[in-house]
């Protein structure tokens, strides 16, 4: 999918992204890995750090079809990534490693990867939106404030 041409109609993506149910997924994550990096485990470790603590328990299963699974469990004390489920996940994301790298490098938003047919999302969409908002929160926290030099 790296060789795909740019969208023929980027406006179509933006129009659908105005739907409240999709809006949270149209923001690239920001780089979890350097472009061209291939350490998937490091990218999920970084993702769990970015998610951090959540007021309510939240579990997301990333099934990378040509690699393995990672389970992120977030709660009031923080977010832990493991290779074993702690219980049924709230959300299951199914994609291959190439699609994940597009997301983890910040090249494409999760919504664009989904729209291009490289990802499935199963489970509680409201929980998926909560997960995305936790990432957006950490994006904001990562940015230097206007008063920082």
């Amino acid at each position, binding site marked *: 999918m790296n060789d795909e041409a740019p969208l*023929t*109609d980027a406006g179509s993506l933006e129009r659908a992204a105005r739907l409240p149910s999709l809006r949270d997924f149209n923001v690239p994550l920001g780089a979890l890995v350097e472009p061209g990096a291939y350490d998937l485990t490091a990218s999920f470790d970084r993702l769990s750090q970015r998610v951090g603590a959540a007021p309510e328990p939240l579990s997301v299963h990333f099934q990378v079809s040509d690699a393995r699974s990672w389970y992120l469990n977030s709660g009031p004390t923080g977010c832990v990534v493991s290779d074993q489920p702690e219980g049924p996940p709230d959300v299951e994301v199914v994609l291959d490693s190439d699609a994940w790298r597009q997301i983890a490098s910040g090249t494409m938003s999760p919504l664009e990867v989904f729209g291009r047919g490289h990802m499935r999302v199963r489970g509680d969409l409201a929980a998926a939106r909560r997960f995305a908002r936790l990432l957006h929160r950490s994006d904001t926290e990562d940015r230097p404030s206007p008063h920082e030099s």
Partner: protein
Amino acid sequence: MPETTGVVRCIRVGDDFGFTTIAEQPSNTRETFILWWGGVSTPADPPVHVRIVQSDWVALLRQALSDNTDVTITHTDNSAIVLNVQLGA
């Protein structure tokens, strides 16, 4: 080719997209599928016969929603883009 069978929870049609959410049975796990998304998932200006097929999909899903009948969605691995829709088991 992967298939997902379940009940229709919703159908959403916009200017250039059509989505449906299926609650897979018996797990009741929900998943949103893309019927079409012009310029993103599918060509922006598909030929007429494709539009007719897409319209037929919506008709089948609408009937399944109103009758609470199972549908089977066919898609490719790792993809939410619908290839075909079957009404009934």
